[in-house]
Structures are given as C-alpha cells and as structure tokens.
C-alpha cells in the first residue's frame, strides 16, 4: 500500500535482479561444499564409518525435506530475507526476528570458520618450505576480499562462486574416478579391510547426526537470493533441488573415497580428509588438485555466507527489526553495502576468539533451529492460505509427510547435539531466549506493524 502513496514523490532504489538458476546453485552448493572437504568426518569419530554413512543419508533426507518445503514457500515469498520474510508473513514478528538471527549467526560464524581454514592451509604450505607463517593476515584478507567482492555487486560475486564451486566439485569427481579404478581399472580402495563395525553401537550413530549436517549445512541459503534472481518462482526451486542432488552425490562419493583409503580413527580427527585421501594415492597432480579444491571450497563458502548473512541483516533492518541504518542499498552497485561492511569486523572477531568449537556449534544449532521452524511453518502456510487461494510457483508433493519427517529428524539432531555439546546447547538457547525478550521489549516498538506484511496475498484464513 505504501508504494502507491510514495511513488510520485520520491525515486526508489532496490537490489538488482540479475541472477539465474546457475547463480542460485553456486550460492547453495558453494556454501556447503566445504563440508565435504572437511568437517563431515567428525561424524566418523562420533559413530564410526558406517555411522557416518547412515548420518549422511538420514541427514540427506532431512535436507531433501528442507529443500522441498523451502522451495514451495520461497517460490511464493520472493524477498531477500528468505526464511526471515517467510516467518514474518506466516508465523509472526518474534519468530521472524529469531529466524533472521539464525541466518545471520549461522552464516557469519561459518564464514569465520571458512576463513580460518584458508589461513591454516597457507600455513601448512609454508611449513612444507620450512617457514612459520602467521595465518591471521590471510584470514583477514579472505574476509576483506570477499566482502569487497560482495560490496561491488552480486552478479560478479556469484559468478566467481560458480567457477570455484564447480572446480571443487569436479575435483571430488576426478578423485573418485581415479580411486575407484574406473579410469585405469585399478582400484586403490580398501573398504574390505578398513571398515569396522559400529564402535559405539547405535547411540554413536545418533551422535554422528550432529556432524552429518556438515554434508549439507547451508543449502537453504539459496532463498536469500530471491530478491535478486530474474524469475524467483522458477530459479529458486531449480537451483535448490539441483544443488541438493549435487550434494547428495558429492557426500556419498566423499564418504566412499575417504573410508576406502583412510583408517576410521584417523579420518575422525583429520583436518582435511579429502586432501589426505589424495595424498595417500601418491599422485602429485591429484594432491595439488585437491589442495586447490579445498581452498576454493572454503573461499566459495565464505563468499556465499557473506552474501546470505548480509541479506538477512539487511532485510531485518529494512523492517527496523534491527537498526534502520543497515537497510541502505548502494546506489551504484545495488548491494546492501552497510550490512556487508558491518559484518566484516564481526566475522573477523569470531575467527580470532579461539573458540572454534563453540562457534561451529553455534552455527550448526542456529541452522537446526531454522529447520525446526520450517517444519511447522509449512503446516501453517498451507492452513492460512490453502492451495488455490494464492499462486504458488511450486507445490511440494506428499504433504504433510516431509514436514513430519523433518520434525522427527530435527529432534534426533537436537539429541545428538545434547550428547556432544550439552552445555553449549543450553548457552546458545539462553542467547536466543534473552535476545527474544530484548526484541519484544526494546526493538519491536520501532517496527511499523501493518507495513511489514508486503505480499499481495488475501487475509490469512482464521485471522
């Protein structure tokens, strides 16, 4: 309604609609693929190699539900805030505030971890030449450079992401073809001798679900591009589902290669398992390729995280959920430049806290809280606006099975987090509870009530 009233007086600015399905794929897979290069293997330590494979597929199912549900809602709610905007229209302001924070926290913390990886990789290279390199300037440079790229425009940012993500994915395929003997007929995989029974039994499998999330964590970030794609109803579902398929393939291949070459106890604590696998194959070319793959995957992930975190922060600020100042769009590059700038020192400080474990748990749990939200969000979405009452770009099949499965799997993953990081879990929940109270008391008074409902939908049923 506000549009018509102000259009005559004032020129308006908006984000640039330039992206296609390929960019959506690059954003989603780019954020996640680093999880294949490192991180997923901690699930091997938690539950053994088979436990990790079960986690890979069970969590894969969780994310397939996420992708289906998300595609339906996003194909209808096309705005930069992604799940934040969905929550605002379907559940209510406090939920939206929390969802927005899940996004900002999950992505900014993941970005910090990615930048640390880049620093550590360079330090490892220097160590091979006998030098002691300080990784910190490279951590800062990674964040600064990617923020700069993001600041200068979304098209270039995600085109770069597409190139380096595609390289990292192809590196996994090449490693697989070489290891499995599909190229020269000589398999180097030793599953028969390396695989052992579940070391902790079934509770270990449950525990491994927590790190099983690394295989896919962040794919739902594709929604954040909704305001910048040329045709959201088509590109977002296509990019997301395509991304999910890419990841299911990459995850299964990664598990297959690594468990066939590396003893599980080593794999469970390795920093760069795919690179280690390449090293064990004794080919310099593969080693170099997987090293670059690891590096690219980390950079692509940090890049996508900056993109998503800044969109979420920007959307919240635009509605005054967060200080309005951050809701500005750059007149030339058409990016949320103040949000991008603001998140630089925060990401750097997360990287330098020395609390990597905590930061990663915070990131994973924020993601998990977001998936829990999606499970009841879709139920309400279908109830308030039944099929046919509004135009949906995509309708996901088998409702309500995906959301029930999603709810059950989320509960299991909370239990896994409780097993591994019970204290952190409580302290992170305390954060979200405190910040919710703060929002209700302090921030919400600044928010315009009716104006934040921006979708051209009829009145929700029952309200």
């Amino acid at each position, binding site marked *: 309604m*506000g*549009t018509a009233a102000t259009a005559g007086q*004032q*020129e*308006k*600015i*908006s*984000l640039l609609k330039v992206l296609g399905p390929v960019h959506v794929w690059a954003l989603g897979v780019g954020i996640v693929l680093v999880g294949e290069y490192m991180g997923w293997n901690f699930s091997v330590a938690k539950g053994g190699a088979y436990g990790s494979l079960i986690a890979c597929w069970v969590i894969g199912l969780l994310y397939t539900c996420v992708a289906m549900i998300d595609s339906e809602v996003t194909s209808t709610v096309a*705005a*930069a*805030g992604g799940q934040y*905007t969905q929550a605002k229209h379907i559940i209510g302001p406090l939920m939206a505030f929390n969802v927005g924070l899940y996004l900002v926290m999950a992505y900014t913390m993941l970005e910090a971890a990615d930048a640390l990886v880049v620093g550590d990789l360079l330090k490892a290279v*220097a160590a091979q*030449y006998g*030098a*002691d*390199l*300080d990784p910190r*300037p*490279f951590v*800062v*440079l990674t964040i*600064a*450079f990617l*923020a*700069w790229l993001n*600041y200068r425009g979304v098209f270039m940012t995600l085109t770069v992401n597409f190139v380096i993500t595609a390289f990292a994915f192809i590196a996994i395929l090449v490693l697989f073809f070489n290891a499995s003997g599909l190229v020269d007929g000589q398999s180097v995989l030793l599953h028969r001798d390396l695989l052992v029974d579940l070391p902790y039994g079934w509770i270990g499998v449950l525990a491994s679900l927590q790190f099983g999330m690394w295989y896919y964590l962040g794919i739902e970030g594709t929604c954040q591009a909704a*305001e910048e794609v040329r045709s959201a109803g088509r590109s977002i579902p296509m990019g997301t589902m395509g991304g999910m398929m890419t990841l299911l393939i990459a995850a299964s291949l990664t598990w297959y290669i690594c468990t066939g070459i590396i003893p599980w106890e080593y794999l469970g604590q390795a920093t760069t398992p795919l690179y280690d696998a390449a090293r064990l194959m004794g080919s310099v070319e593969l080693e170099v390729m997987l090293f670059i793959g690891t590096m690219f995957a980390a950079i692509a992930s940090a890049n996508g995280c900056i993109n998503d975190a800044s969109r979420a922060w920007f*959307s919240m600020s*635009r*509605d005054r959920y967060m200080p*309005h*100042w951050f*809701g*500005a*769009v*750059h*007149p*030339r590059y058409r990016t949320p*430049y*103040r949000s*991008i*700038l603001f998140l*630089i020192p925060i990401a750097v400080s997360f990287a330098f806290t020395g609390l990597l474990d905590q930061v990663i748990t915070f990131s994973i749990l924020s993601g998990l809280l977001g998936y829990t939200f999606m499970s009841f969000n879709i139920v309400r979405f279908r109830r308030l606006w039944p099929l046919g009452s509004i135009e949906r770009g995509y309708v996901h099949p088998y409702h309500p099975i995906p959301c029930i499965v999603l709810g059950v799997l989320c509960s299991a993953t909370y239990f896994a987090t409780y097993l591994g990081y019970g204290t952190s879990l409580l302290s992170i929940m305390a954060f979200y509870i405190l910040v919710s109270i703060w929002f209700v008391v302090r921030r919400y008074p600044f928010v315009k009530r009716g104006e*934040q409902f*921006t*979708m*051209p939908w009829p009145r929700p049923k029952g309200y």
Partner: protein
Amino acid sequence: MDFWSALEYGAWGLSIVLIGWMLVDARFVSTTYGEDFLLSSREGDE
C-alpha cells in the same frame, strides 16, 4: 625480510586497502545521496 614475511605484510596491507576503500566509498555515498533515498528499498517491490 624473507618471502613469507613479505607475504604476511602484503596480506595485511591489501586487507587495509580493501576495507579502507569500502569505508571511503560508503562515506562518499552517504554524503552524495540523501539518506531517505538510500533507505528507500522496500520488500516486495518490483
């Protein structure tokens, strides 16, 4: 100064240049354009 420490200084330097460039540009934008225009983006507008 060997190659590696030159690289470290280079990384610090480049980071400062990039962040500095963004800060200067953001400042320039704020002084050139009106705040109302910069904040005029609305969700759901086509």
